[in-house]
């Protein structure tokens, strides 16, 4: 164990992957000598060379297409799409190729590729550098969506993603890059498709992803002083997600809040809320509460952005409302 940043944990995972798997390569814009916009690939170009840490022009469709083509012939490509907002440029490659080819060609191909991308707001990035895009992909069978909340999971989940035979969209929340935490040394994997109970509690469950996990943990801490016991479930994989862990927790606490940073309509919160209502109806003492962004693009100006995105106070408020609500 050592105290490591989220960025360094990702960098370590890529380093270990490149060391272990000769068929693995990295591809993306400015990931080579420069080490990537967020320094996630720092020093890897010098260590592994330009063939395996491959710079590209601004050609997102060709980047992901290259990954798909290489993956079907047995390579393990890991792409970096600089900002998640640019995934529209390669949406077809992800949705119509990577996610479908194992199925539509009857299992003859697999697409063991990873698309890493920086998502999320809170830094004044404006409408095209701040979005939470999981909802764009939530409706796509065949894709795996991974969303770590801390450095240890970032490393373990990235290694698991590299080793997965399914195509993975790996979301890195920009606000987390500098987060630090204890991370095991060397190679380890955190299984995809598994949520974790990040804090145990008995009165209410908060199901959260990425940056919202820290907010949920802070809210739990704050409310503990008032004698309120909050359980926090970190979903970690958004698709296919670990319904068992979520439903077991809600069955125990009888109340739930789902918290993510994307807009409300058609998003992860909607899916989780619907599922909890369907499957835990008789256990629920109140309707599921939701914390998410307002239904608007993300503006540049700091106070406006702050207004749009979910803040810690919203999590605390949603917990209180859900605790006070009665059936």
């Amino acid at each position, binding site marked *: 164990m050592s105290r490591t940043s989220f960025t360094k944990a990702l960098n370590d995972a890529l380093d270990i992957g490149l060391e272990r798997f000769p068929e693995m*390569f990295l591809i993306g814009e400015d990931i080579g000598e420069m080490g990537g916009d967020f320094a996630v690939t720092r020093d890897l170009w010098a260590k592994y060379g330009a*063939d395996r840490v491959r710079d*590209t*022009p601004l*050609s997102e*469709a*060709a980047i*992901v*297409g*290259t*990954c*798909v*083509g*290489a*993956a*079907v*012939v*047995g*390579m393990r*490509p890991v792409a970096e799409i600089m900002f998640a907002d640019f995934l529209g440029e390669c949406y*077809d*490659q992800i949705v*119509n*190729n990577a996610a479908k*080819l*194992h*199925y*539509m*060609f*009857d*299992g*003859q*191909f*697999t697409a063991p590729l990873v698309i890493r991308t920086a998502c999320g707001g809170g830094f004044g990035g404006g409408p095209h550098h701040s979005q939470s895009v999981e909802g764009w992909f939530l409706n796509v*069978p*065949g894709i*795996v969506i991974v969303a770590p909340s801390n450095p240890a999971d970032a490393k373990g989940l990235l290694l698991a993603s590299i080793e*997965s*035979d*399914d195509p993975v969209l790996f979301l890195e929340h920009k606000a987390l890059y500098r987060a630090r935490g204890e991370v095991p040394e060397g190679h380890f994997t955190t299984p*995809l*498709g598994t949520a974790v109970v990040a804090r145990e509690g008995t009165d209410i469950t908060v199901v959260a992803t990425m940056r919202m996990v820290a907010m949920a943990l802070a809210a739990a801490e704050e409310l503990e002083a008032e004698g309120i016991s909050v359980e926090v479930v970190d979903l970690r994989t958004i698709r*296919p997600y670990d319904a068992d862990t979520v439903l077991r927790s809600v069955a125990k606490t009888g109340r739930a809040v789902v918290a993510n940073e994307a807009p409300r309509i058609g998003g992860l919160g909607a899916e989780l809320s619907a599922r909890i209502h369907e499957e835990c109806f008789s256990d629920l003492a109140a309707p599921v509460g939701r914390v998410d962004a307002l239904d608007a693009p993300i503006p540049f100006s700091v106070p406006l952005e702050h207004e749009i995105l979910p803040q810690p106070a919203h999590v605390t408020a949603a917990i209180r409302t859900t605790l006070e609500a009665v059936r």
Partner: protein
Amino acid sequence: MERDTLLGLYDDMWLIRAFEQGLEREFEQGNVPGMLHTGLGQEATQAALAAHLDATDCFFPDHRCHGINALAQHRHRGDGERIMAELFGRSTGVCGGKGGSLHSADPTVGNYGDNAVEGSYMATVLGVALAAQLRGEPKVACAIIGDGTVGRGEFHESLNMAAIWKLPVLYACVNNGYAISMPVGDGHASADIIDLAKGYGFECRQVDGNDIVESHRAVGDAVAHIRAGEGPYFLELKTWRWQGIFAGEFRPAEEVKYWREEHDPILMADEVLESMGVDAAAREAIESAQRARIEEWIAFAKKSPPPDLAKATADVYVGWEVAGR
């Protein structure tokens, strides 16, 4: 060209034509679900490509490529009927009926599968080519693309990246003059797609795609160039599709007459074969043998069982099961 080589190609062109005509008949009778795009009139382009691509190469077929798919399947595995069965949506198809006309694949014969989002594999082909380059394999990765498909941005991303990395990609552009209803010259800055490709600085060539002798030579040169490690190659094959648009024929009568009666690839090959001493009877024997083969394939498809319903949710993921109803 040697007489035997041409006879082989002629045989292949008849396989393709018989396949498409048999399929068209079955489609009209309501036996083939979905949509139908045929490669009728474009047989020489596909026969020329199939002649030079090995099972260890890679080609991405387009929506008019039943013929080359069947040819590759027949040549390398002896089971061309599985392409027919796929188009009928049967369990014996190359994709167990999940893909159909627009998504037939079998990598063991070099067929990496069509995309019904036209030409998406212009991007995908780069990865197959890159893997071959990194591994030092002499593989050719070929994307078969229509003139209309060239309108996609991926065309330019792909040619650019193939050029900067000197990838072993063969772009086989089948320019049949139209994208559904859009004439090639109205949809692009040039009616000659080669003009759009030239700026990327690699080898480009344009041929009469209905002249099997010329097309065969051109594909051979392109494949040799790529295998020699000389980088990508852009080959434009000028042809014409018999199929109009779904509503029927929309092209000028004299144009239709020219392509169907004077510039049909099989009639053109007939003339060359005649001059080589292959008489009409010998040629008709080739045609009827292929037609008989296709009838067997259609019968095979029709008597094949439909897919097991458990397959509906199989193979969504490698690592997870998806629940059925």
